[in-house]
């Protein structure tokens, strides 16, 4: 049976439908989750999509982080459920302290929208087993507040524990420390990244299909678990 993957819709989410579509195209059953519900409806993994949840008021992700569904997402993430935060979803995961650090306004002070080259630094997470370390992939990047920052100690720990999973190559688009594009938690089940793999699953609308392995990785992980 195809695994059920939930995608949370917050007020102001934009890429929830693309994420649901990507889940379906890659062979799983997408389940739409509403931010105001306090149930995950039996899904086996959760995606927090991109967009401008709560209008990015206060700080990106600061208000969404306290949405009712997030209490369940945090509980599930801490218990080992695969959670993927894309762009605004990454910001929410940082605000929720499921991932360390924070995302601040791009150092270039403009919204960046481009096909971005990334180097895979770790295939040892529930969302990246279908990649190989050192592989260069190209995924859509579009954000105004994608600069990853963290204190020295946190950066040392992330680097030392192999938790930087994607790095920007051929230019750092937003001033992220250590060219960090994506990180994971200690267990490797919670992953956050600024680029948008859900836009790179289909040759009609994406220049590459480098987003597919995110979804197939988690499906394999869930299949192996059962």
């Amino acid at each position, binding site marked *: 049976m195809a695994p059920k993957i939930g995608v949370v819709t917050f007020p102001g989410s934009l890429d929830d439908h693309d994420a649901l579509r990507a889940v379906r195209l890659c062979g799983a059953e997408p389940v739409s989750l509403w931010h105001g519900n306090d149930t995950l409806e039996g899904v086996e993994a959760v995606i927090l999509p*991109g967009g*401008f949840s709560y209008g990015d008021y206060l700080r990106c992700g600061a208000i969404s982080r306290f949405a009712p569904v997030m209490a369940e997402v945090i509980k599930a993430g801490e218990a080992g459920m695969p959670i993927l935060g894309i*762009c*605004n979803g990454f910001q929410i995961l940082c605000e929720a302290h499921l991932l360390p650090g924070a995302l*601040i306004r791009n150092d270039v002070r403009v919204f960046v929208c481009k096909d971005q080259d990334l180097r895979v630094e770790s295939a040892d997470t529930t969302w990246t087993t279908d990649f190989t370390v050192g592989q260069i992939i190209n995924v859509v990047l579009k*954000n*105004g507040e994608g*600069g990853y920052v963290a204190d020295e100690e946190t950066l040392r720990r992330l680097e030392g524990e192999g938790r930087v999973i994607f790095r920007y190559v051929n230019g750092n688009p937003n001033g992220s420390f250590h060219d960090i594009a994506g990180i994971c938690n200690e267990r490797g089940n919670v992953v956050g990244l600024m680029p948008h793999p859900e836009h790179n699953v289909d040759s009609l609308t994406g220049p590459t299909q480098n987003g597919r392995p995110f979804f197939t990785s988690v499906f394999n992980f869930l299949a192996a678990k059962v």
Partner: protein
Amino acid sequence: MARVVVDVMPKPEILDPQGKAVTGALARLGFTGMSVRQGKRFELELEGEVTEERLAEVRRAAETLLANTVIETFIVRVEAEPESPPEDRDVESADDGEASEQAEDAEQAKSAEQAEAGEQAPSAEQAEAGEQAELATQAG
């Protein structure tokens, strides 16, 4: 009712692109030698008396939601009671102008300036339209 103010600022070691943009704009307008860092000011109207417990609660609120202590610092302070009711204050500062500002201490001068700035602020609708336009250029 008492007013407690929470000032939130980006930590010194964290890049402040907004402050940099404002610094650049000031320089282009001829306001040189001014380096800006931009933060946020929250005004909390508290019911009842401001006790140590209430202030501790405000600090918890600031830590939980108003500031992200990974990248920001915050200061909580109780704002002095205005000498006259708020509806009179605007009129006063407009009439007395500079003379009264000079007479007041620095903190009061600041609040008078803010009151004036408030008077000149665009209408709520305009402010919201501007906000939405700005949002369109931010993170996705």
